[in-house]
């Protein structure tokens, strides 16, 4: 009972009237291309997130795809939690979807269960503009389509200087009350690595990291399972800093001065990202050419730019078109910033230590 497992890929539904208006106008920027009739009348079944990433994907990817090809996209927009991956795995061999969009960890799980088909990259022309490391994930079973970017969140009221290093989290005077990500999120894994690096270790020499994290214990108010609770704690002055956490959780609150909420990607150590993937299940009800066309469309520079502006996450296409207006926002990342500062963890390596690290992290912060 209740709404648990608040998946981290949840966004505040405030992407602005502009994008909604654009969607209702049938996305004129892409409508001109509606000439190919090969897929007319065909149907693609898409499983995407229930939150605003999912909504944005419907507006910016599915709707424009329909306009371009004449195909129909039926979207199940309820797959936002990790239970959904468990659900897919349990009901695995039933053909339900042509394309599923999900996080790297989930894709790895489905791939390991042998439920995914390896896409042929030659059938996805737009992929040439995607830097190598963002092209595929889950051992080649997934095609990257956006970067989930994590920041340090801070209170603009109590933190005087915008932090420029993760070491700020350990600064008692600047940030007496902090929050950290919950152990089951990949953000927690990244934080462990950050702590290790600050203490002179790295992901293969992780012990110093746990020691360093333990120093934070008494100042940790909560492990932020629920972004809305976190925002409330900031608003009421009960938190000073926290992370890793995506600003995409708080677009509305960041704009509202009542919350005094700030976020920064500008750490000298770089910012941590997680590659979101599109995958093709082995058993698909629909047309394979159509599925490939959809994958290709999701990497279109225009679509990539719109997605980035819409939901504050990094585009994977290096040629993504971001408007001049959007470039001014500190929360909308450009391909250049990503090329410069983005750090991507090694999912395959993390999978080998995930269990142990979750335990250590849980133990350290148990109250």
């Amino acid at each position: 009972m209740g709404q648990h497992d608040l998946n981290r890929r949840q966004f505040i539904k405030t992407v602005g009237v502009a994008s909604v208006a654009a969607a209702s106008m049938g996305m004129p920027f892409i409508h001109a291309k509606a000439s190919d009739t090969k897929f007319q009348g065909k149907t693609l079944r898409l499983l995407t997130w229930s939150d605003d990433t999912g909504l944005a994907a419907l507006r910016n990817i599915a709707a424009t795809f329909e306009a371009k090809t004449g195909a129909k996209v039926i979207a199940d927009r309820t797959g936002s939690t990790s239970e959904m991956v468990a659900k897919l795995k349990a009901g695995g061999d039933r053909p339900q979807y042509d394309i599923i969009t999900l996080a790297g960890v989930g894709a790895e799980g489905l791939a390991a269960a042998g439920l995914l088909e390896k896409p042929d990259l030659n059938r996805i022309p737009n992929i040439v503009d995607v830097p190598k490391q963002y092209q595929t994930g889950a051992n080649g079973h997934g095609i990257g389509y956006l970067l989930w970017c994590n920041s340090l969140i801070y209170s603009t009221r109590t933190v005087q200087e915008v932090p420029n290093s993760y070491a700020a989290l350990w600064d008692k005077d600047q940030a007496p009350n902090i929050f950290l990500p919950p152990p089951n999120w990949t953000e927690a894994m990244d934080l462990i690595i950050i702590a290790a690096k600050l203490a002179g270790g790295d992901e293969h020499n992780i012990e110093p990291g746990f020691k360093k994290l333990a120093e934070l214990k008494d100042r940790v108010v909560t492990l932020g399972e629920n972004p809305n609770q976190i925002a409330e704690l900031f608003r009421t002055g009960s938190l000073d800093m926290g992370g890793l956490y995506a600003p995409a959780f708080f677009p509305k609150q960041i704009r509202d001065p009542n919350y005094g909420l700030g976020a920064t990607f500008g750490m000298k150590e770089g910012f941590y990202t997680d590659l979101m993937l599109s995958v093709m299940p082995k058993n698909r009800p629909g047309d394979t050419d159509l599925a490939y066309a959809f994958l290709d469309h999701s990497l279109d520079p225009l679509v990539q730019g719109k997605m980035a502006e819409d939901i504050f996450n990094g585009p994977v296409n290096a040629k993504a078109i971001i408007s001049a207006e959007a470039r001014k926002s500190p929360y909308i990342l450009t391909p250049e910033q990503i090329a410069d500062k983005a750090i991507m963890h090694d999912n395959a390596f993390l999978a080998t230590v995930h269990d142990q690290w979750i335990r250590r992290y849980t133990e350290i912060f148990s109250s």
Partner: protein
Amino acid sequence: MSSPLKGLIRFQPTLPGDTGRFAGILSGFILLLAVMPILTMIVMSFSGASNLDFPPSSYSLQWYQAAWKTFVSPDSSDVLSLGQALGTSLLVSCLTMVLATLIAVPAAYALTRCEFRGKAVALQLMSLPLVFPMVVLGLAMLLVFDSLPFHLTTSRLVIAHVILALPFVVKNCTAAMLSIGTEVEEAAQMLGASPMRAIIDVVVPLMKSGILAGMLLAFIVSFNEFTVTYFLYTIDVMTVPIWMYSRTVSSLDPTVFSFAVLIVLIDFVLIWALEKLVGEGGVSF
């Protein structure tokens, strides 16, 4: 909620055996504490501000208007409207309530009135759904239903909900049956009733309050069940908690509280109606 309540308690006759004023006030206070977060939520749903400041700086119906809009003209991106989800929820909950009660009464009879081989096993089985961690149960049930050669949609939700509600209903019926001595049944049989008639005509009516408590719980368990339902719902059969989930994970504006107040209202009306139904028959709840 509490001030008229305490006033009424004070006017209770103080015959021996009637509620003592102390117990009444104490329980009023305990219940007030228990519903405190819900009261806060109700107040916030009337907030005129856009954040969760408490107490709100101004009051308005803006969030109810927003909620109403969602109700009458659902977002085209929603697969199902709240109305459809509500329909499904009510159907599933009613079926669950009726089925769970129909199977629980004979079960409770067997468990209280008969000594038989395998009783301990039966008792354990009945309480199994209570102790199953929900996520494991949801996953396991999905695996079971998927291995069936035929497809179930609404009915698999009903089956799962009946199982989840069963311990509550059985416990209530058992407790009620225990409070009725075997003598009434025996007396009925002495007067010529068959054993089955004695149960249906004498024991069951006496159990009414326990049965109704069980029915109510079955309905409530079903109406609010989330975790197991999450694994078992399909795209066209979605219940209100699932709908709410997909609406509310991402945003927290007081619209969500307005929806919650709507659900509270539905439950409140149900409790009211049920109480009224049995109240006239002299059965207290």
